[in-house]
């Protein structure tokens, strides 16, 4: 049996580089044909997550959610219901007495977003509301840990739900505690940078996109706020499919990662270009496309911009850990075929 990450086609030449002006208000995608312009550049975008929410400066999740939900709205003709797990997104978007959501939205509990969404989908189905669709959203904590059981149940039943996980790699809302999505060596409040193994342990952690693929659901994708057009496209693709779908979005968190708010998109891009966060799509358990790394960067460039990895620099043990992280990145590149054969390595 082939592992789900075996690429089915290896490119033999460098992927052509496209230049986009994406999501800028000044140019507004006018250099692009209409059909490839981003949803966010469109004056008719729904602003489903409206301004005025209380997210931190530089919040990757707010950025990702804004793009993802507006894309889903466009894809469904504005017939979307959102179910949100407890977490940063839920808290900063609905501080009493205000709400940033311009769409029907429900927050139930921390661990049940996928199940609540299954219920919404069932009700829509029984009432014959074929055009209305449902999206569930949660952070990594609410998805990979406490919400894992309900997530698997929704996958297994193939309920018509798109689940979006905004992965900032820790329980941020409660003060930066370790989750099963926290990368090795990262400092969090419950994996402090001290002792023989400072930061999060190596050899732990859960890869939920792969687990989603193991359920053989119709569509799984990873996305990043480094490539917002790609993110929108994946959401749009997902909404064309009926059944259980999962998109895992990498969203840097300046507060939790100890990075500059202005670095959010840069960090997301470095994670992709180093190989630590592979971008790919999968259908029915098999990878069907991946985004090539244009220019591979060593993981140091990514890690050193974040205080949560500061303890890895300037000492021998830390250097060993960095080397381990590098090998993880290299492994991703190999397994997903992220580099063209003749691509230059740094």
């Amino acid at each position, binding site marked *: 049996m082939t592992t789900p990450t075996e690429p089915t086609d290896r490119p033999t030449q460098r992927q052509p580089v496209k230049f986009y002006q994406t999501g800028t208000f000044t140019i507004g995608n006018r250099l692009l044909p209409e059909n490839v312009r981003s949803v966010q550049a469109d004056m008719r975008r729904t602003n489903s997550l409206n301004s005025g929410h209380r997210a931190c400066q530089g919040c990757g999740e707010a950025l990702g959610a804004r793009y993802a939900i507006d894309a889903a709205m466009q894809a469904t003709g*504005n*017939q*979307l*219901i959102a*179910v*949100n797990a407890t977490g940063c997104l*839920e*808290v900063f978007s*609905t*501080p*009493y*007495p205000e*709400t940033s*959501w*311009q*769409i*029907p*939205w*429900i*927050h*139930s*509990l921390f*661990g*049940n977003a996928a*199940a*609540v*969404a*299954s*219920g*919404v*989908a*069932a*009700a*829509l*189905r*029984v*009432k014959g509301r074929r055009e*209305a669709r449902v999206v569930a959203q949660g952070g990594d904590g609410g998805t990979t840990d406490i919400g894992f*059981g*309900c997530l*698997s*149940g929704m996958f*297994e*039943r193939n309920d018509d739900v798109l689940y979006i996980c905004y992965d900032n790699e820790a329980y941020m809302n409660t003060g930066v505690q370790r989750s099963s999505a926290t990368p090795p060596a990262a400092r969090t409040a419950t994996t402090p940078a001290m002792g023989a193994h400072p930061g999060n342990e190596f050899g732990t952690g859960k890869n939920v996109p792969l687990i989603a693929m193991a359920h053989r659901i119709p569509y799984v994708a990873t996305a990043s706020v480094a490539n917002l057009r790609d993110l929108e496209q994946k959401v749009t693709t997902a909404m064309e499919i009926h059944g259980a779908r999962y998109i895992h979005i990498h969203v840097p968190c300046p507060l939790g990662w100890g990075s500059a708010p202005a670095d959010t998109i840069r960090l997301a891009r470095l994670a992709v270009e180093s190989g630590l966060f592979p971008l790919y799509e999968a259908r029915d358990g098999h990878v069907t496309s991946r985004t090539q790394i244009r220019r591979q960067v060593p993981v140091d460039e990514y890690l050193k911009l974040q205080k949560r990895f500061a303890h890895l620099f300037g000492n021998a043990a830390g250097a060993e850990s960095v080397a381990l992280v590098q090998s993880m990145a290299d492994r991703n590149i190999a397994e997903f075929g992220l580099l063209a054969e003749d691509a230059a390595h740094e």
Partner: protein
Amino acid sequence: MLKQIEGSRATAEAIALCRPEVICAYPITPQTHIVEGLGEMVKSGELEGCEFINVESEFAALSVAIGASATGARTYTATSSQGLLFMAEAVYNAAGLGLPIVMTIGNRAIGAPINIWNDHSDSMSMRDAGWIQLFAETNQEALDLHIQAFKLAEELSCPVMVCMDGFILTHAYDRVDMPSQADVDAFLPPFEPRQVLDPADPVTIGAMVGPEAFTEVRYLAHHKQLRALSLIPQLSSDFAARFGRASGGLVRPYRTADAETIVVALGSVIGTVKEVVDEMRGEGVAIGCVSICSFRPFPLAALREVLERAQRVVVLEKCLAVGLGGIVSDGVRKALSGIMLKGYTVIAGLGGRAITRESLRQLFLDAAEDELEQVTFLDLNADIVANELERETQQRRSGPTAEAILRRLGTVASGIG
């Protein structure tokens, strides 16, 4: 139409008559037959316009129900014991959000020690979550209460738990009168939600509420249950008018008018109590009983009216407030605030131990003579207790209590008691 069927089946058929739109099911003894029956009816097409979802846990079951109810579907689920605890977070959530979900509790003891038989500890564990809690005396009342429950829940926008004794009711074949679809349709109109997730009219459900408004939101939930105190008797009387029999309501007194001793109980045990009451009345003892049908909201005024002229009240409970004594007794005491009479708490039937006519008779005779302790555990085997306590004083590593007691009891074939 009269039928002789299993209590679970009767309940399932009554729920089907209420035209549920989403049913989520997770198995746990002793409610499983109910959801199995409903699943069969959906699959066979007998119950149309209904989605039946097999979920992966009780927490998922109620969560799916929350999503479905919030989207405007009439929603139902069922559980017992451990399952109710596993969904505890969602139980509070559903009530807090004001979603009119109806859920059957097949009353079963909560472990440890693990026990599949009947008592009320499960429902009692969620008594303050904000759900309305109705207790059925018979399988007829169980099916009737579900019909009333949907109407009550939807009128108030408050979830309702219908509690029926596991095995004793769920697994008993009884004669029941199953209403017609036409009669149920006339009694229970289609669900019109107060709040609904609808792209045409977006709302935010489940926002955070801080100190400046939390108290008011909670007060309104309390107020809602107080309103139910008038709504429940009204529904019961509407039900009687349409279906021709008494069921539901707040409390049901039996021969209490001139009673000196009144027994208070919930659920099926009241049937046995009535038999003993009749027997003792025949011997000239001034005794009566009252069953509490609506445990939440707790019928303080209605109960006071029934009990206030008695000399003593015996509260027979199938639950235990560990370290305190009675749970139902607390409410009864509160109902009798300011009135001087003797009150006795009797803990009985825990974990499915049979409550026999004989034991009750002796108990009530003792009560009538005021020869009862404040708190009595009915039919407690004092020898077993003494032996275990002694064993524990002898060595630190005395091992699991349950195992030790079972070893002492030897093989128990049917556990009648």
